């Protein structure tokens, strides 16, 4: 009983000391409190529009027939495309494309009209600007909708010419009907896809970098990051680890809830999961990041500024290794295993599945178990690394 009380007393002492360190450091305050709240808001505003609309395109109409004009009008009427220029020659349109005035060219050749009249397949050439995936997507999305519509119109005309009209022609034209349902991201938008993952990553990186900064600060100033009660000396590093992690956990609980629950709500991102499963899922995530940060901070960081220098740019690789862009099943085996080192990988995957896709906790059990495993593993490494550097006498123990 007495021993437990001593342990709790030690943990409390470490916790208070760590709080003091966090709140007396303007850089850590910036990274812990401003960045995770500011960035999600900035990015939400940035990707507010979700999709490209009114993409300027040029049209070269050498067919000059009824159908080509109707086609062009319909394209202009789609939300994705605006026919900005009507050119007489391809060279003219090419010039516009080279100056980035338009992002796609639709070319109706002369035989477009003759092919249609002869009941053959008529071709429209599309030249798409590939500098951004979204220009290409908008151009194809808008023009494909028109293509299908126009196909049906012409098909009806042709069947009518063959003596099939009304219901008969319709049945003939569409023997199988379609419905397309875009799940979990109804507008097929960039923001709804990117932002939840980005917010998770912001939480991961700010927490990780903040902890590394604190470790570096302590080591640089040869100040004790341990604030271990003198009687503990070289044992009981787990008490210090627990005390410090409690401090970060207390700070990050409200931040995580605001960043990952309230901000998506305010900006109306798709959110199907309920708060409880999200919270239960996020607990091991935050803990794993804390212990991961402490391990890396204890072992590698010697100066306060070096984590920002050496780890910040790595966020990009971290983002791509979560498998949100390039699916995990298509990653080379080596990178897939590499990505499992970081809590962000199971964290982002699980969070997207719960929050965006409405999965239950049992659906994400692989990720959930992985996070707890990481928590346990990094807790042990954090304790041992602390003991290791203590043995090296890099710290004065107060």
């Amino acid at each position, binding site marked *: 009983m007495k021993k437990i009380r001593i342990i709790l007393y030690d943990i409390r002492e470490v916790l208070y000391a760590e709080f003091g360190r966090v709140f007396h450091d303007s850089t850590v305050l*910036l990274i812990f409190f401003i960045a995770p709240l500011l960035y999600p808001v900035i990015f939400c505003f940035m990707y507010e529009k979700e999709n490209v609309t009114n993409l300027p395109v040029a049209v070269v109409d050498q067919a000059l027939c009824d159908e080509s004009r109707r086609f062009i009008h319909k394209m202009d009427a789609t939300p994705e495309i605006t026919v900005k220029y009507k050119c007489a020659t391809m060279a003219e349109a090419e010039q516009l494309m080279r100056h980035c005035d338009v992002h796609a060219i639709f070319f109706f050749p002369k035989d477009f009209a003759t092919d249609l009249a002869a009941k053959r397949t008529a071709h429209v050439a599309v030249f798409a600007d590939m500098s951004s995936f979204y220009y290409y*997507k908008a151009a194809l999305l808008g023009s494909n909708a028109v293509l299908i519509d126009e196909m049906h119109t012409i098909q009806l005309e042709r069947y009518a010419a063959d003596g099939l009209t009304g219901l008969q022609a319709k049945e003939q034209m569409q023997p199988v009907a379609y419905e397309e349902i875009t799940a979990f991201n109804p507008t097929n938008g960039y923001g709804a896809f990117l932002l939840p993952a980005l917010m998770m990553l912001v939480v991961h990186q700010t927490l990780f970098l903040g902890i590394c900064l604190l470790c570096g600060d302590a080591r640089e100033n040869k100040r004790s990051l341990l604030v271990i009660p003198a009687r503990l000396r070289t044992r009981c590093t787990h008490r210090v680890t627990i005390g410090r992690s409690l401090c970060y956990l207390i700070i990050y609980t409200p931040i995580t809830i605001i960043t990952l629950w309230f901000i998506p709500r305010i900006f109306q991102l798709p959110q199907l999961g309920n708060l409880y499963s999200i919270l239960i899922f996020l607990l091991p995530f935050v803990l794993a990041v804390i212990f991961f940060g402490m391990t890396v901070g204890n072992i590698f960081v010697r100066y306060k500024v070096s984590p920002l220098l050496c780890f910040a740019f790595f966020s990009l690789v971290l983002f791509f290794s979560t498998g949100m862009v390039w699916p995990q099943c298509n990653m080379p085996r080596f990178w897939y295993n590499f990505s499992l080192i970081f809590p962000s990988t199971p964290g982002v995957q699980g969070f997207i599945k719960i929050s965006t896709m409405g999965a239950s906790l049992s659906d994400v059990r692989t990720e959930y178990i992985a996070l707890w495993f990481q928590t346990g593993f990094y807790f042990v490494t954090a304790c041992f690394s602390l003991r290791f550097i203590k043995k090296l006498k890099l710290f004065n123990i107060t």
Partner: protein
Amino acid sequence: MNSNPVYRVFMREYKRLIAYPRYLVILTFGAVLTFVFFATMTDEGQPQRLPVGVVDMDGSYLSRRICHELNATPGVQVKEVFDNHMAARRAMQRGEIFAFYEIPKNTYNEVLQFHAPKFVLYNNAAYLLAGTLCYKQLATMGMLAAGGVQREVLRKKGVGEKQIMGLIQPVAFETRNISNPWINYGVYLMTTLIPAVIAFIALMHTAFSIVRERQRRTVKHWLKKAHGSTVYALLGKMLPYTLWYSLLALTANLIMFGFMDFPMNGSWLLMALNSVLLIVAAQCAACLIAGCINDPSLAMSVSTLYSAMSFSLSGFSFPIDAMPGFFQSFSWLYPIRHYFLNYTDIAINGNNLHQCWPHFCALLGFGLLLLLGAMVLKWQINNNTAEVKREVKKKQTVLSESEK
């Protein structure tokens, strides 16, 4: 001995780098790792054989044929055939499949009776790239299936093969994707992200080197080498990093446009100039930040916060013109934005300098940030020395008074 101040500062920084190469090695390793990561990951161009599902409630010849044909396309593979909607939805939520087809009961019968059965295509847009690709494949397959049925019927009616194509598909697109005909995803990502990462690293390293002078209280020594001019001091300090990171950026470009055969329609020289100017512009931004902010770690974190948005504001993934007006103007403050526009101008559109000079000028304009940083630095140093002198004077007067 050469008395050029920039050269003297350069030599001083160079010797330091050689003596303590730890960060240079780590950061170079980081840049190389990033390059290898993206190059090996996007090796296939587009993700191939993505897992999809089919909810086959019909179990007929037609539905099985659709499964087989889906499996025969390179883009997708049928991972599982489900017998109800819920199971497929759960699999999608678990991330096991990215899209699925639902083929209702009696489909084949209804097709034969011309009752137009309805196929439903669900795709998971939470994974945008994978979802979109699967959708594209499945939708094409659906079109082909419908076309196949139409063709069978028309054949039986005695319509000629040539006419059949005209009836099934009266209009078609011939898509020509300029400069990226394979729709290779690696081309999108790497051409902008790799220089962005190198610029990010150059910015952080330059800021770090300036910050270290303050931390070690060697500013005086540094300025002495530069004959007291902060502009020379900053220039000399930047130079070793400029050389090294420009070399990295140029090598990366050489590998991408040379060995990996990424499309390059313009002048190599301009592209090289573009890369070097990107590095210099990023370093100038670092000079301003590190020059203005006294606290070392605060300066570094502000540099990080600034650079972290560079990937989004380059506009390579989501176009800047679709962002709110504020961000459109804000993106001009990022060298990578100008780099990206120059890259599209040179490598994709094959333009030359008289076309893309505005953004080259903009990159050069970042030099003003260096001057601004130098001014602030000078002002701060003067302030500091004045303060120190005042304090010394105060102490002296106190001492002399106590002596009296």
